[in-house]
């Protein structure tokens, strides 16, 4: 029988991490994601699976611990919320530059600065466009339910190791804090050190006589080599774009308008569709599940069918730029959003759609 539990999004992440056989979690408290570390500490994962859980002295230290754990071939992760994720950007660019697999959870809250502890989606640019210095990309997953918080942990690590690239789960304070029914998966056994060596022949697992030493670094002072490395990274990102686009559609078949929204906003848009359709407005939803890679191709197809797009974001309008690029500005694309930790109501989304297009 399937095991079902009522959990917060933040707790689902932690339970999924233990069950997925994650080797290490390194974190630092910040609202609204502190339950991730609290749950892990309460669960004693060192007894359940041997997983290492450590409360670091700062977000900066925590992300650098992730760099090292990933560099040693282990499945490691961290979590934080917006101001903490800003602090982690140094480590994240080093991780991308050293091509290390790991998972980073951002339970987004409103900004800028210390902002608010209420949910927002205003870290889209930071997550999707790199965030730190240099030309790099994270693979970004956007859960819209507690179940997806759970499921995306294992998916993150699959993608991270497949591409040797950091993966970010871009959630928000609503998904992190709300409780929903979650189907729990089987407990996976953590890899042995021998299995780690086999999976990650590049990792610093200790130099034996059979191989050259392994070095984890993002440094190459030779510009010609550094350019070649950058070309290699960009090639990898193209491959990710070709293979890993994920999205969900609702009632797009006959849609004259569509919402494009992810995470909490997408959940709100589901209700907005009901309200709008009851009024006779044929509207659907495209929900990007991967924010990088972005569902450009599908959006371009839909642009031939619909009269206009309304992006709904809990921000001043960030994803809208990618939507405009995807449809090559061939149809009107407008934004509706609330900021500062305000979650829009389904009704005001419908009102915005009517005001914009009808």
């Amino acid at each position, binding site marked *: 029988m399937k095991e079902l539990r009522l959990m917060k999004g933040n707790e689902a992440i932690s339970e999924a991490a233990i069950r997925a056989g994650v080797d*290490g979690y390194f974190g630092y408290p910040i609202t609204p994601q502190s339950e991730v570390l609290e749950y892990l500490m309460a669960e004693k994962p060192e007894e359940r699976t041997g997983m290492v859980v450590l409360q670091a002295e700062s977000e900066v*230290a925590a992300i650098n611990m992730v760099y090292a754990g990933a560099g*040693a071939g282990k499945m490691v992760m961290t979590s934080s919320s917006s101001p903490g994720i800003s602090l982690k950007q140094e480590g994240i660019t080093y991780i991308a530059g050293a091509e290390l697999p790991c998972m980073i959870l951002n339970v987004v809250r409103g900004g800028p600065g210390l902002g608010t502890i209420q949910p927002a989606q205003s870290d889209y640019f930071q997550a999707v466009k790199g965030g730190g210095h240099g030309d790099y990309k994270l693979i970004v997953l956007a859960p819209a339910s507690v179940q997806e918080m759970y499921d995306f942990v294992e998916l993150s690590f699959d993608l991270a190791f497949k591409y040797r690239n950091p993966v970010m789960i871009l959630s928000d304070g609503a998904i992190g804090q709300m409780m929903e029914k979650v189907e729990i998966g089987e407990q996976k056994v953590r890899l042995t050190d021998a299995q780690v060596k086999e999976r990650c022949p590049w990792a610093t697992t200790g130099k034996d006589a059979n191989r050259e*030493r392994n*070095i984890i670094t993002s440094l190459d002072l030779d510009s010609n080599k550094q350019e070649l490395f950058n070309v290699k990274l960009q090639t990898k990102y193209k491959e990710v774009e070709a293979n890993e686009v994920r999205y969900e559609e609702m009632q797009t078949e006959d849609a004259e308008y569509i919402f494009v929204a992810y995470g909490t906003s997408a959940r709100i848009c589901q209700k907005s569709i009901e309200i709008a359709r009851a009024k006779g407005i044929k509207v659907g939803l495209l929900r990007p599940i991967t924010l990088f890679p972005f569902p450009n191709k599908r959006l371009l197809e839909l642009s031939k069918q619909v009269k206009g797009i309304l992006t709904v974001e809990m921000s001043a309008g960030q994803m809208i730029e990618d939507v405009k690029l995807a449809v090559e500005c061939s149809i009107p694309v407008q934004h509706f959003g609330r900021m500062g930790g305000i979650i829009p109501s389904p009704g005001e989304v419908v009102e915005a759609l009517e005001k914009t297009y009808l």
Partner: protein
Amino acid sequence: MAENIINNDIVKEENLVYKKTALLTDKALSYCPGCGHGTAHRIVMEVVEELEAQESTIGVAPVGCSVLAYEFMDIDMQQAAHGRAPALATAIKRLYPEKFVFTYQGDGDLAAIGTAETIHACNRGENITIIFVNNGIYGMTGGQMAPTTLPGMKSSTSPYGRDVESMGNPLKMTELVAQLPGTYYVTRQAVHTPAAVRKAKKAIKKAFENQKLKKGLSFVEIVSNCNSGWKMTPNKSNEWMVENMFPFYPLGDIKVPEE
């Protein structure tokens, strides 16, 4: 003619007085001639060789002059962001508790930008070894003032000498971490004379062996010279170090485990 004599009569096994450890690569060191880093690298790798620990040692290189330490040390290594080496070493050791894990850091890296990571790794009592090379200056970036620069000492960012009123006093990190319950062995050494090198190597060996005891962090400071940054000849810089650095940073054990 003279060359033949050297080749045939002097280079013999029985005349061999020194041999580079196999755990240093053949890559030419990137350090300025006269700098202590080369010797410090050598004795760390000699210790790893003597412990037969090439396979079971993972090192962490810093940012600074020794950023390329991984080019010279023939072991698996990770290069850390500036100051973060103790955070890296923490994670590696926690995930591989049976490996020897060490960081090799300079004073800008360890005592300025990495102060938090250093203090907290020490305070948690991580079972790692920190090698801290203190030459009182930022060498790599061209001789700027470091947290360890002596009062009155000139650098490119304290061109009239370090004014403690406005620039603060030098930070004695080694005495500071010795106060923390998580440190097990804390010592200050040097590598400017053969006798000092022998003592420093012994300290490093002890610091590595301590990891097996799982009783906390071992911290070895090596007070060294920076003849380029100090704008002196190598010999003069070593004399200056003895006369000026050692009184402020006295050599010897600061915290020794009770037997």
